[in-house]
């Protein structure tokens, strides 16, 4: 049966340049079998990008290819109509035909088959999406949001698409159905060896589900990479903001301070107080040679680079301990807030040596039980996890 056989296709390459009616700039790619999340605030142009892939929007300049097939190329004037692209597009509000039953909705994308086979095939797809025979005969209005979405996915898959596009598929669905949809998506990925592009503004979701992320704002693609890569080294302060990097600080780039630093390709970063004045803390971090000494920078550190050591208790502030040893910087800190959320705990730590700055940490497991308010604690920052970028 077709519902389970893999549909072979190639990688999706998109490059779009347009300044009006709305700006759209950038390129990205999505391999067959890859799940790519397009993230950004509302109005970032995520849906427009999907529409351009589907052929519903014709950008003024650009090129869209799938495998060795060209869907659009403004240089050669090629443009394949959406009818002939074989795109599976699941609209944000599903866009099901209100006058047709679930089954007729799916059958509508099978018009190339003789009419006797359409309903049969539509039924197979809907069975595959776990809609009961009775539900398949209902009109969209009488199906729940989650069921409507399954119909929309069935309709998209019945097209035997070369690429699956999902526009905010989880936004209108309650938390219960959401888990079911995550599972469904995981199953689909195993079955279909095609690029899957997911538009979402939920970062946790993108991070949780996607192999790669494309960060967009104002119609422009800012960065593409794996979620881990983007969180660890956002290209600029704006990307760090958009993806919600928790520990984002200001600093002054001091550059290499010795011949050894230059050999090791490291530079020194001075942490700034909340007021913008230099603190006593200097970090020795990797230098890619893109920053100038004296430049104001933004830097981030991911949770993986923040270690706690409850055994040490400071009695006095000693800046000497703040110099890095083996790439680790030990800092004295105080727990200022603790929030237990289910199986994880969020804590905020104040740093006496950096005024007005709080470090946010997430802990799970036994370690979180030991976090209590006003408790002095030693924080060790692993400088390998520090990423420095120019301030915008």
């Amino acid at each position, binding site marked *: 049966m077709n519902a389970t056989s893999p549909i072979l296709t190639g990688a999706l390459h998109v490059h779009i340049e347009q300044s009006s009616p709305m700006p759209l700039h950038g390129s990205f790619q999505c391999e067959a079998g890859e799940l790519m999340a397009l993230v950004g605030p509302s109005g970032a142009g995520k849906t427009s990008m999907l529409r351009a892939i589907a052929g519903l929007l014709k950008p003024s300049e650009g090129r869209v290819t799938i495998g060795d097939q060209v869907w659009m190329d403004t240089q050669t004037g090629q443009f394949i109509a959406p009818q002939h692209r074989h795109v599976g597009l699941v609209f944000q509000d599903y866009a099901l035909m209100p*006058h047709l039953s679930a089954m007729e909705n799916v059958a509508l994308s099978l*018009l190339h088959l003789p009419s006797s086979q359409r309903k049969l095939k539509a039924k197979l797809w809907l069975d595959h999406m776990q809609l009961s025979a009775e539900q398949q005969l209902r009109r969209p*209005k009488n199906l729940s949001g989650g069921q409507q979405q399954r119909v929309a996915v069935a309709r998209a898959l019945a097209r035997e698409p070369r690429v699956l596009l999902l526009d905010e598929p989880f936004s209108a669905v309650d938390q219960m159905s959401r888990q079911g949809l995550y599972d469904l998506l995981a199953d689909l990925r195993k079955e279909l060896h095609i690029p899957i592009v997911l538009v979402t503004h939920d970062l946790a979701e993108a991070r949780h589900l996607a192999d790669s992320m494309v960060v967009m704002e104002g119609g422009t693609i800012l960065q593409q990479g794996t979620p881990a890569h983007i969180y660890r080294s956002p290209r600029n302060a704006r990307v760090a903001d958009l993806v919600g990097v928790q520990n984002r600080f200001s600093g002054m780039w001091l550059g290499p301070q010795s011949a050894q630093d230059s050999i090791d390709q490291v530079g020194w970063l001075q942490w700034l107080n909340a007021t913008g004045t230099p603190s006593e803390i200097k970090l020795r971090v990797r230098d890619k040679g893109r920053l100038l000494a004296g430049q104001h920078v933004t830097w981030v550190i991911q949770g993986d680079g923040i270690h706690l050591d409850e055994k040490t208790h400071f009695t006095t502030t000693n800046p000497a301990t703040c110099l890095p040893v083996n790439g680790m910087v030990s800092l004295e800190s105080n727990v200022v807030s603790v929030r237990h959320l289910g199986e994880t705990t969020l804590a905020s730590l104040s740093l006496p040596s950096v005024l007005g700055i709080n470090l946010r940490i997430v802990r799970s497991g036994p370690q979180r039980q030991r976090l209590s308010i006003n408790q002095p604690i030693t924080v060790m920052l692993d400088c390998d996890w520090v990423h420095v970028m120019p301030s915008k």
Partner: protein
Amino acid sequence: MDWQSFILSLELAAITLAVLLPLGLWLARWLAKTSFAGKALIEAAVVLPLVLPPTVLGYYLLVSLGADSSIGRWVLQTFDIRLTFNFLGLLIASIIFNIPFMVQPIQRAFEAIPSNLSEAAAVSGLNKWQTFFRVELPLAWPGVLSAVVLTFVHTLGEFGVVLMMGGSIPGETKTIAISIYDRVQAFDLASADQMALTLLLLSIVAVAASFFATARILKARAR
């Protein structure tokens, strides 16, 4: 009862519908789907026959299509066809004064269809005609139905324009509405009564049928 006039009226209504329905569908869909600078002007022109006094509309049609007008003279010389005081003239008038009744309900119905349904249809592989017949027309159907009924009933009852453009030639331009007036003038109230009642009942049946049909469509859709 003037059966000749009654049948003439039915014929006029049927042919008006046959000509105006495809035209109206096209114009209404176009107005619903596009937006451009001069759209309000076209929409105003569509509504104009609704707000003009029928005698004024009839007068201008007579003046611009009569044998003395440039259009009328050209058509007479080229095709040997007169455009006034015959069934053809009546039909032209009927089509023009029915434009708002046909176009407006259909336009509203097309406007109410979410635009992403056409996009979903396109992505599903439907071409423009398939999208029209399988998605747009079924969804706009209640509006189309009420446009058809309004046009039909309105054609049966139109008086001023018909009198101006057609005169009152039995079997050619004497519609039932004119016949009623004619009978009243001749103090033949019994015939006038009969015909008025026929027209009243026909109108009630047509309107009621369209309302029931619309309600059924909407009820089925809610199921």
